[in-house]
């Protein structure tokens, strides 16, 4: 202001709005710097996120497809007999079919090597077909089965054919066989539904996330059913009914503390209390859900209290003013208005729980289990612990599957957070 020259007429000083002064320039510069910092921060965050996702996709995408071989199999009644189906010679039948396509392989000495082209689980594909329809015995059927991990990797270009034979998991002859099958048009690389429909397996080409997904589902369901009502109940009591005194302050502070406790501590607590003291089953998603509920509860309480606080007091007064009881005010007016906020907080809490690994490891949800849990009390893994297990496995196939599983986990997280944002926007405050 001081640099505005007085016109000398003695009247109020006038200045043009378009005239720029040092002060204005300084203010604009400060604005620009602040904006620059903001944009820089966002760019950094996005770059990091992009690198993360890109690296996961680049290692994980191969796990979304799986190399399969389609065989014309003569179901030899000499090998596969109806009366002893469960332990029939399915492997022999498949090997015979392969051998018939590989003229240079010796049916005796190479049988074992040829058989190893197929996944160990291939025989079960055939068995399931025959068990479902025993009349196929004696016929020639077409069946598509996964190949074993080394050949899967070979097909996906992860085996460098130039490296010395001794350092490869597949030798030159085997590569020759595989190429012969490939040129015969028997090799295909379809979408790998097994990643979702199969449970865990020792063989990477068969391992899938079904067990982990089911385990996570049970755990999150348990977590939700326990933490949601208790969390909301606690929040309503604290916010609407509890007297404001030292004790309620103390409780409030400790709920905030609880929300900040590292998850591994909850895992130790669960191990000591749920497993050792209550004697609940190890590795069970139910116990996992209980543990996760301990962690989710403070989040839900805090979110619910914030949502309840955000309901304007005038609504409560209005309801009280027409003679509604406290309980009618809370359940008839305040809670419905707070619900979007509560749900958003709950979903975010569950999304956090979805990715929690440490507490689940401590209660043994990293066991090797080859079937999906049929109840929350069966031993199971969960998505994050499955990732942990696979990340620990040396096979090449597990490396890409680890990344693929992480992508699946991230997909669920994005889905849940998206749902939270959708709910928040849909029920925007209307007063």
């Amino acid at each position: 202001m001081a640099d505005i020259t007085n016109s000398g007429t003695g009247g109020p000083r006038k200045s043009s709005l378009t005239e720029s002064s040092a002060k204005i320039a300084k203010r604009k510069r400060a604005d620009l710097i602040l904006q620059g910092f903001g944009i820089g921060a966002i760019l950094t965050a996005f770059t990091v996120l992009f690198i993360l996702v890109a690296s996961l996709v680049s290692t994980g995408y191969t796990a979304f497809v799986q190399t399969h071989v389609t065989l014309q199999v003569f179901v030899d009644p000499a090998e596969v007999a109806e009366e002893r189906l469960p332990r029939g010679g399915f492997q022999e039948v498949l090997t015979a079919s392969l051998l018939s396509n590989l003229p240079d392989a010796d049916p005796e000495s190479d049988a074992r090597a040829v058989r190893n082209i197929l996944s160990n689980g291939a025989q079960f594909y055939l068995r399931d077909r025959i068990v479902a329809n025993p009349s196929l015995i004696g016929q020639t059927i077409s069946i598509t089965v996964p190949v074993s991990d080394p050949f899967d990797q070979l097909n996906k270009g992860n085996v460098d054919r130039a490296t010395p034979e001794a350092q490869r998991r597949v030798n030159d002859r085997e590569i020759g066989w595989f190429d012969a099958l490939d040129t015969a048009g028997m090799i295909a690389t379809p979408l790998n539904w097994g990643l979702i429909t199969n449970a865990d397996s020792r063989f990477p080409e068969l391992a899938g996330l079904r067990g982990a997904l089911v385990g996570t589902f049970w755990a999150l369901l348990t977590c939700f059913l326990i933490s949601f009502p208790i969390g909301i109940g606690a929040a309503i009591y604290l916010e609407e009914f509890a007297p404001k005194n030292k004790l309620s302050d103390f409780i409030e502070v400790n709920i905030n503390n609880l929300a900040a406790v590292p998850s591994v501590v909850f895992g130790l607590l669960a191990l000591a209390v749920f497993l050792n003291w209550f004697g609940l089953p190890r590795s069970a998603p139910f116990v996992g859900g209980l543990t996760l509920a301990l962690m989710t509860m403070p989040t839900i309480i805090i979110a619910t209290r914030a949502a309840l606080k955000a309901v304007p007091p005038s609504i409560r007064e209005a309801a009280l003013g027409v003679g509604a009881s406290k309980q009618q005010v809370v359940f008839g007016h305040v809670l419905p208005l707070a619900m979007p906020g509560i749900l958003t907080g709950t979903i975010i809490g569950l999304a956090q729980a979805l990715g929690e690994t440490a507490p689940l490891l401590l209660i043994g949800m990293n066991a090797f289990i080859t079937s999906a849990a049929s109840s929350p009390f069966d031993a199971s893994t969960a998505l994050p612990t499955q990732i942990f297990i696979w990340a620990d496995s040396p096979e090449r196939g597990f490396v890409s599957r680890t990344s693929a599983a992480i992508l699946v986990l991230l997909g669920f997280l994005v889905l849940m957070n998206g749902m939270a944002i959708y709910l928040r926007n849909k029920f925007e405050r209307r007063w």
Partner: protein
Amino acid sequence: MNDMRLTERGVETKQIKMKARGVEVFYGDTHAIKSVDVDIEDHTVTAFIGPSGCGKSTFLRCLNRMNDTIDICRVTGDIHLDGEDIYDPRIDPVQLRAKVGMVFQKPNPFPKSIYDNVAYGPKIHGLARTKAELDEIVEKSLRRAAIWNEVKDRLDAPGTGLSGGQQQRLCIARAVATGPEVLLMDEPCSALDPIATAQVEELIDELRQSYSVVIVTHSMQQAARVSQKTAFFHLGTLVEFGETSKIFTNPEDPRTESYITGRIG
């Protein structure tokens, strides 16, 4: 018109509906109301006037125990409704508020439909046995609040979508719907235009037939137009209380005179 009322007042002997004696209100350490005695008559409009912050709303909220909801607020003294002490521990404040309805300074409809706004009170108090009865109460209340014609075609529309003045009349309809015996109105016209104000004033005059009405207002003219009794508050004390005509024409206390002539405010 005023003259007519004066004569009317002369012949009627009115019952005392609410009686306050030695009421003191504290917000924590703040002494907001100091030893107030007021008699609120049945079938009468009582106006509370006074400068901003003098405690009109606070005292009004004592009359239906709305102050109970403020943690730091403490009320002492006696307030009787039809001879019953409303601060008696045996009294249920919820029941009390059904009898002593309230319209707030700021319109605060529920974020629900217009119909539900009005029907809420009758529903929770079980005033209607059938849907038809409820419909009737809703229509009657909306008519009394002079808003029926504006909303009758959109009873399902949200109450929050109305204009400020319409919202205030909706709130009046909501308060009337529960059939209170006393209606407390805290500056009900502060958000209204002159036409809506006139309608509400007309309504207040009509409500007087069945209820006792207490109204807080900043408008001297309004107090003079609608009320029969006026209470002047200043700094938490009740300075003067009496016939409206007397307060406005011949106040006893110099503070009252300064206020109504615009010197305190």
